[in-house]
């Protein structure tokens, strides 16, 4: 609903507004921060976290195989005796070494077909079927948290629009960098008035104004307060996709670090559908992984001390075929890896009940077989990090998942 108090504030001076925006409240609903990253297009888990210690790995992966740590220029970074990390993921490797990165491997959602779009629906709606749910599990999780003071939205979508995972009854904000001059307060007040009989548009406008206030209040983001002023470079959307991702995570970090700001944020990255020329240490996948690695690094930097209270979950709709296809890439598969990282994470290890890579070990003779349920990882994080009780996780957040026990020990106590 439209926050009238907020729009009335528009009538007073900018100086007064700034005072109003300062966090004069007690701490928000929770001190923990959760960021969910959706990799759209199906990340090849066998490339990101290669099982270099599996005796069949080099053979089944052929030209895409990475070597064991220390084996030369195509070598993986070392994790443990079984697993390595793709050499583009140097920042994540540092996180692993400092105990802040946890990998769960051979993990999959309950979805067992191979459509990207249905697969993404399932990891976002939190159910077992791709359709039939118009809201997302992360929005339902927000409803379990005590509200923020000042009625600020607890959830933030880092993009112009809200992805399914964050849609639902809890109001959420969205933010993306812009090249255009900001709208002036007077215009927004007039528009709010014009929308007063239109609940949908007026809710959106109110959410948008709240976020732009947060951005303006944050002097480090340095956005101009009025219309007609050109924006500075920090606010212009970057041209290159990876730079844009870094820009989004850097600003997201600042918004999340605010005392009365959002507690949960979502962003996504595309381009993981590596059907052709996937490559090993070089190729189509490697620059994407490097871009992700750098984006996560910039998120960490921007969060500053709040990183200690943060968990980031990186997930994808499914994995890719174990065998290479005819164009030196991989086709749609089943199990893959999920990453949990952050200062709050009890990391430095790989959780895997490794199914093996021989044809008889594979799901339908072609894909890595799932031995962990992605919902167990997500429920574990929501329970230990955001203190949501397992009963409501099994009933409301991930309906029909009460038999899927949350993984424990993911978050430091």
């Amino acid at each position, binding site marked *: 609903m439209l926050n009238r108090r907020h729009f009335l504030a528009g009538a007073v001076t900018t100086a007064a507004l700034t005072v109003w925006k300062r966090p004069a409240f007690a701490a928000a609903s929770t001190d923990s921060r959760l960021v969910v990253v959706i990799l759209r297009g199906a990340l090849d888990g066998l490339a990101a976290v290669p099982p270099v210690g599996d005796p069949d790995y080099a053979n089944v992966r052929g030209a895409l195989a990475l070597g064991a740590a220390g084996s030369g220029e195509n070598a993986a970074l070392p994790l443990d005796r079984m697993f390595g990390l793709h050499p583009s993921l140097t920042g994540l490797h540092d996180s692993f070494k400092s105990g802040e990165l946890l990998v769960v491997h051979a993990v999959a959602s309950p979805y067992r077909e191979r459509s990207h779009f249905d697969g993404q629906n399932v990891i976002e709606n939190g159910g077992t079927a791709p359709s039939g749910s118009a809201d997302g599990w992360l929005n339902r999780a927000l409803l379990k948290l005590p509200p923020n003071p000042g009625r600020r939205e607890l959830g933030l979508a880092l993009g112009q629009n809200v992805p399914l995972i964050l849609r639902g009854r809890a109001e959420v904000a969205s933010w993306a960098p812009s090249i255009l001059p900001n709208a002036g307060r007077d215009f927004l007040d007039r528009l709010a008035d014009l929308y007063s009989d239109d609940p949908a548009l007026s809710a959106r406008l109110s959410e948008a104004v709240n976020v732009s206030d947060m951005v303006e209040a944050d002097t480090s983001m340095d956005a101009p307060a009025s219309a007609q002023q050109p924006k500075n470079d920090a606010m212009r959307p970057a041209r290159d996709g990876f730079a844009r991702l870094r820009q989004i995570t850097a600003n997201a970090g600042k918004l999340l670090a605010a005392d009365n700001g959002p507690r949960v944020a979502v962003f996504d990255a595309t381009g993981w559908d590596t059907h052709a020329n996937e490559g090993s240490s070089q190729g189509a996948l490697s620059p994407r992984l490097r871009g992700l690695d750098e984006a996560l690094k910039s998120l960490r930097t921007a969060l500053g001390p709040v990183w200690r209270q943060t968990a980031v979950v990186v997930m994808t709709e499914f994995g890719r075929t174990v065998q*290479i296809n005819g164009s030196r890439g991989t086709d749609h598969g089943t199990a893959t890896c999920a990453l949990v990282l952050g200062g709050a994470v009890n990391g430095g290890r790989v959780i895997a009940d490794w199914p093996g890579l021989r044809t008889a070990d594979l799901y339908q003779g072609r894909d890595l077989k799932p031995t962990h349920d992605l919902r167990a990882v997500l429920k574990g994080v929501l329970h230990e990090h955001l203190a949501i009780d397992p009963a409501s996780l099994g009933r409301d957040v991930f309906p029909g998942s009460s038999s899927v026990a949350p993984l424990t020990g993911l978050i430091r106590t």
Partner: protein
Amino acid sequence: MVNSKPLIAAQRFGLGARPGELSTIGDPRAWLETQVRGPGPTPPELASLSDSATILGGFLAARRERREEKKEGGDPVKQTVDLIRKQIVPHYLAQVEARTRIAVNTSAPFHERLVYFWTNHFAVSVDKPVVTGIAGALENEAIRPHVTGRFVDLLLAVEQHPAMIMYLDNELSVGPNSRLALMAARRRPDPKRKIDINENLGREILELHTLGVDGGYTQADVTSFARVLTGWSIGGGQGLLAAGKPGAFHFRENAHEPGSQRILGRTYRESGQEQGEAVLRDLAQHSATAHHLATKLARHFIADDPPAASVDRIARAYRSSDGDLKTVYAALLAEDAAWNPAPVKYKTPFEFVVSVLRAMAIEPPEGKKLAGSFEVLGQRTYSPGSPAGWPDTARDWDGADALMKRVEWSLAVAERAASVRDARTVANDAFGDAVSPATARAIGRAESNAQALALLFMSPEFQRR
């Protein structure tokens, strides 16, 4: 808000009224049906565009040249980026500009909207560099000529267009028992360089272009169909791949997997290129395809969640007419639900921009500025980022930040166009007497014509169709 039928025709089925358009509509259904009677004349805006074979052939040749130079040193990444910027992006910008000019000026806006609908149905995305120069060519060469014809012809044209072949990686899909594979194995046995199929095109044809994800196919059908499609490629490679016109669709007999394949319970005997065409013809006739296409059309024109009865009737028209699209559109226009007086479809960024330019009767800016506008508003042209195309439901577009971007864009455009036309006239031309009292009041109280125009563009009646 209650809209009259001519206004619905112009707003929901068209692209937003240009000045004077509402009074020329007459019988709204007849106005719309006349627009889809045939393919119509080729828009003159397309005359200056290069064709896909020229653009793709040139790109592939230049890329090959750079790769050879790379062996002699030089920065391959920088050179490719350079190549795309200098040689490919100008084609992309020319296509975006032509498309928008047509949309802004056309007097057959329903026909144009259907072109965009099918382009989105058969989505390719320019974030794949090899597609950047030819995505617009797919629309103009494969989609435009068949929008008022039979679906099967549209399907065949699209799946044999170089943009679709390249976007879904089929040019690299080679049958493991094809002559090419056997020859390569003899010449250079290398277990690390496996020659095999690529499932991408086969899967997306079944899932997205024809049957739909619940259309009843299996993984085995996907794999068999991918084998059938081996050899559907692009001409003018090197060595064993030299045959065919460079940059154009070419069936590589020597890459085709020999033998019969079984798909959806039917056996397709080996017949080269014809084998894949036979599968496509059967897919176009399948009742799941009729249902899938009817659902998407109803979602685009009736409501995000269209009534099942309307979908069924449109699907029936598809089946009984053997997929004749004119008949399907007529069935859509016969639905009462399509004439719901309340505008329920939230405009996409492209629809929003085009309707503003039409209402103002101003020409779009040159390609680079125009492409920048669509990008700022969250919908870079020909760039849905996935083969599923842009979603056609409001919840994917109506984010708070997206609304703020529209506000900022409206203000910037209104500022520049304030001297062109008076906001009250624009409102009256675009909506007749259907301007809501709230919008009329906001316009009347605005402090300047620029502010009044921006409020009009952002008004609920302008944001929905």
